């Protein structure tokens, strides 16, 4: 069975917790909105297929990634220099510019972890020697660690994020929170943890914006208003190894305007990103979404990917100017082919890897599909009267809806009888 789904989520025909999509732009309303999805009763069935990206889930991601593959050519240059406090909230920037220690800060935890903390701890061997130290107190200001519960995959993922506003707007990579059914964010400079909801995502550009619940007075990151130059010294700060301890990896900018295509994994397509900063900093798993800082402590990029297997690690970061531009589009609240506001609609079926149409492999417990009685062997043939001759077509059809939408599903059951059922789509995991 191949993972494919529309998009995951919460359930209840009754009342999905305030669809994250309804989260207003900061400055307009605010908090109080519940965290991201908590898939009630979602545990059972799908978890038996741990590590298999559920159809709904991966299809959603696949669609988004495929759509955007190679489409986003970013401007790699930006005029001007100097720094700017990340002011991206609707209120016009309530952020507090952090005071970075350009020297790297001796007042922090110290340049070396006395425990000999090693990135990628537990590695059986090192094809690449990783050079990093525990981040200093100055380096962690405006940086958060992110842990996503992947409720439909029975797993967790960890990454890093950047504090944009004092009220808890967070910038990170989309892939850090993809598949999340709940998200916890820890502001590392204070140790305070918050539930987070997804404001919006752009999977094509690999950017997501989160909102921390009930956050205020947070120190923000200082962002650069221009790209670094080749040869500039940079430091990547991130949640290396998912330990929750931020580390710092120093390097230089080795190239600009780079294009990469990440390796596909399972049913998830690789992503093609353009206009990236290439760095020699040793970035590793867990660093995604974290800041790449210049020698003045300003964020110049968001660590996103790295080469693997070679004797040296080559890291790639999305320029902060690009990331902030995407974040502004998300915060404008308008969905486009690339931008999704809030969480996606979710039916809750896994689909067989079949060329004979959208063949249901199973209905995830607690989802609209399960409540509607969809079961393994059913073949979904249409959504609201529109034929869905393939898993992709079904995914696209569901993705065109919003959580709360009522849709008619036509299907042929295992006995060969034609059936129709009306379901109320719920919120899916982040896509």
């Amino acid at each position, binding site marked *: 069975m191949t993972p494919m789904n529309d998009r995951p989520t919460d359930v209840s025909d009754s009342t999905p917790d305030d669809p994250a999509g309804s989260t207003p732009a900061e400055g307009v309303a605010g908090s109080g909105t519940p965290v991201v999805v908590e898939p009630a009763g979602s545990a059972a069935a799908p978890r038996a297929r741990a590590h298999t990206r559920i159809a709904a889930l991966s299809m959603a991601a696949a669609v988004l990634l495929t759509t955007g593959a190679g489409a986003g050519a970013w401007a790699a240059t930006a005029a001007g220099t100097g720094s700017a406090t990340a002011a991206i909230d609707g209120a016009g920037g309530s952020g507090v510019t952090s005071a970075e220690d350009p020297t790297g800060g001796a007042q922090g935890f110290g340049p070396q972890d006395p425990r000999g903390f090693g990135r990628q701890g537990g590695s059986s061997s090192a094809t690449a020697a990783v050079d990093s130290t525990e981040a200093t107190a100055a380096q962690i200001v405006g940086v958060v660690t992110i842990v996503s519960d992947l409720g439909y995959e029975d797993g967790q993922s960890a990454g890093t994020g950047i504090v944009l506003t004092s009220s808890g707007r967070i910038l990170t990579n989309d892939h850090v929170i993809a598949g999340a059914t709940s998200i916890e964010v820890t502001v590392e400079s204070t140790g305070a943890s918050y539930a987070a909801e997804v404001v919006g995502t752009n999977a094509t550009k690999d950017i997501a914006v989160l909102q921390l619940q009930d956050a205020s007075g947070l120190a923000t990151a200082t962002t650069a208003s221009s790209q670094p130059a080749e040869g500039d010294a940079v430091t990547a700060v991130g949640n290396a190894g998912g330990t929750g301890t931020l580390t710092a990896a120093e390097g230089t900018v080795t190239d600009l305007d780079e294009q990469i295509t990440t*390796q596909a994994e399972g049913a998830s397509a690789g992503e093609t990103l353009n206009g990236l900063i290439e760095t020699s900093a040793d970035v590793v798993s*867990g660093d995604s979404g974290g800041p790449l800082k210049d020698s003045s402590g300003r964020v110049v990029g968001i660590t996103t990917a790295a080469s693997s297997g070679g004797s040296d690690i080559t890291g790639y970061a999305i320029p902060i100017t690009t990331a902030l531009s995407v974040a502004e589009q998300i915060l404008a609240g308008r969905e486009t082919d690339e931008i999704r506001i809030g969480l996606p609609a979710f039916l809750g079926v896994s689909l067989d890897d079949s060329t004979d149409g959208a063949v249901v492999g199973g209905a995830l417990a607690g989802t609209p599909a399960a409540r509607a009685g969809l079961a393994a062997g059913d073949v979904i043939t249409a959504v609201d009267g529109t034929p869905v001759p393939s898993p992709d077509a079904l995914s696209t059809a569901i993705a065109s809806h919003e959580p709360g939408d009522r849709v008619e599903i036509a299907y042929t059951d295992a006995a060969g009888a034609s059936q129709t059922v009306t379901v109320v789509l719920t919120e899916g995991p982040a896509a």
Partner: protein
Amino acid sequence: MTAEATAWAAEHGHEVEGLSAQEAEVRVRAAGLHPRTVVPESVVTLEFRADRITLHTDSDGVVTAARPG
């Protein structure tokens, strides 16, 4: 959240070095973990999955390292 894959890699990672990627994947799955096999010079995203072992391979498809995440 790092215990699972990290602990496995520390304890068993060396055992899969020298195996083919397919053989290593079987062992990783048998441990209830999810293998991510990467080929030389490929580029991967840097989210950390507590249930994932990244298998680095050489040009012959032989595992050279098993890392958590």
